């Protein structure tokens, strides 16, 4: 078997295992917690007969293992249950919202990388310079800040005081054609910048640290010694190797990023899954909450598989491990 096939198979197997893990703990938590769905469905003032009928209808009277089997089988078919408040399949509710969350998290990742690479390079090539100090302070503060605090500050300043940007939602009603894209972009700016601000710090700090390590390695010393311009040593030689661990970090932080997106969407009334979670919380719509977690977990796992595979293509060492 060629090593590439083994590598891909291992990564896919891992992804499936992660998804199984996520769905299984969800199932167990839902069944074992004090507020279990049987109690949520059946209220005390129902007659025992009505309760029994309801429980049977939801399949909650069967043994746990049977319920678990059915639950997994439904998940495989993409069935996440029915929303209690909206009486439509959870999958429909969430798939409508997913593109907005993907747009928000995807664009914030792109901006973080696009801003983070030059910042990291500048900080690493002039250690202890003014910019480097700023980056270090900003890195610590960025990691420590509460996402809604940043979001609210941006909303207040640029949305309400300066009135440069829209304060909420993802688009304005009644805008079509080319204007629509501009409108969506304008609505995206503040939520996206909020997420960029909270994740840029750790990205730049990691890149800076690995880049300083790379620059001290023999191959970079050699490249400098043979007369290569400094700019080339940094961008072509050191950065390439430093980007790999940094990319892994981005993959590891996707779960955190999704959490940030949930809070940001809540502040900006952005119609993604996060805002859906917020609304489901106020209405105690458990199937939606459960479905949102499963869907977000699946998205993160899928994104990790893609980065892993891309990583494997870029770096032959990974494939043979």
């Amino acid at each position: 078997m060629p090593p590439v096939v083994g590598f891909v198979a291992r990564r896919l197997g891992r992804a499936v295992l992660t998804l199984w893990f996520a769905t299984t703990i969800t199932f167990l938590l839902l069944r074992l917690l004090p507020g279990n769905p049987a109690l949520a469905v059946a209220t005390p003032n129902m007659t025992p007969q009505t309760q029994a009928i309801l429980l049977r209808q939801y399949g909650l009277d069967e043994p746990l293992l049977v319920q678990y089997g059915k639950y997994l089988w439904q998940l495989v078919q993409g069935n996440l249950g029915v929303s209690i408040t909206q009486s439509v399949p959870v999958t429909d509710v969430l798939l409508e919202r997913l593109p907005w969350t993907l747009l928000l998290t995807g664009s914030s990742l792109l901006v973080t990388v696009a801003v983070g690479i030059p910042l990291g390079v500048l900080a690493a090539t002039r250690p202890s310079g003014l910019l480097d100090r700023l980056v270090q302070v900003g890195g610590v503060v960025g990691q420590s800040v509460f996402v809604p605090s940043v979001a609210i500050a941006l909303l207040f300043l640029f949305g309400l005081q300066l009135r440069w940007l829209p304060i909420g939602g993802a688009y304005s009603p009644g805008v079509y054609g080319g204007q629509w894209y501009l409108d969506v972009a304008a609505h995206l700016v503040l939520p996206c910048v909020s997420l960029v601000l909270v994740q840029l710090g750790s990205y730049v700090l990691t890149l800076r640290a690995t880049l300083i390590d790379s620059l001290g390695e023999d191959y970079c010393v050699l490249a400098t010694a043979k007369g290569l311009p400094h700019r080339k040593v940094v961008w072509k030689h050191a950065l390439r190797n430093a980007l790999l661990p940094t990319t892994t970090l981005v993959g590891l932080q996707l779960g955190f990023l999704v959490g940030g997106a949930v809070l940001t969407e809540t502040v900006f009334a952005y119609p993604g899954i996060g805002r859906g979670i917020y609304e489901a919380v106020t209405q105690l719509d458990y199937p939606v909450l459960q479905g949102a977690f499963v869907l977000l977990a699946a998205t993160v796992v899928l994104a990790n598989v893609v980065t892993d595979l891309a990583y494997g293509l870029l770096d032959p060492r990974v494939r043979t491990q």
Partner: protein
Amino acid sequence: MTAAGIALDQVVADQPTAASATWTAFRRNPLGLVSLAVLAALVVVAVAAPLIADYPGGYGPAVLTPPSGQHWFGTDNLGRDIFAEVVWGTRISMLVAALSSALAIVIGVLVAVLGAYFPKVDTMVGTVVDLALSLPVLPLMILVAALAGPSLATVVVVIALFSWPEVARVVRSQALAVVRLPYIDAARLTGGSWLWIIRRHLVPAVAPVIVVSVVLTASRAVLSAAGLAFLGLGDPNSWSWGRILYEAQQSGAMSSAWWTTLFPSLAMLALVVSATLISIAYNDARNPRTREN
């Protein structure tokens, strides 16, 4: 006793202990000291909350007034004093952070140390930790908190339940290195039980990592608790920083009155930044290589 033996004793006695060397180095770091002072001040505020401000319960006639001499941090949409809310919020936020991180540390260290000592357990521990860390934790916390019903205990348990894998990851990598050292083999050869070896030899060796973990887990717990509260899943009967933000967002006050959100945000930032800086300063002070310069 031979002369050489006495001389050796002398040398050992003159050597500063690791803890005092770390503390000496820590004291030379101004950022670390300032952070320690900020953290201490917050602890004092948390403990002495009843002495500093009245419990923010009663509605006042002055609704959404900006900061003034009477209301240092202004008032919220129901005329309650935000300074009092932040002061009492310090108490709950730090309590939640301390309790949930303590619980997470106990579980995480236990899992990590047992895993490091028993290779068979470790395969499972490693897999579970890796899997748990790759999942989006906040949506999972939300699901559980919503099911269990909002209360202080729920928040603490939920945060601990999903924070220990991070502790386990950090402690485990250190413990795995320690277990391979010869002195652990020696301890085994003396016939000590595994419990004794873990308690007396393995846990002390990873203690510095645990210290850093406590600080970082607690500060992250502050943010998680605030996140839950911001979505309406905090304890509705006690003030926390997250709840102040939640109420400002619910009432729409956040868009007209900047003081309703700025001050709790600053309090949170002060706590988390100082905790982070303390752990960085401690790490630097502990490391003989960075200690020299």
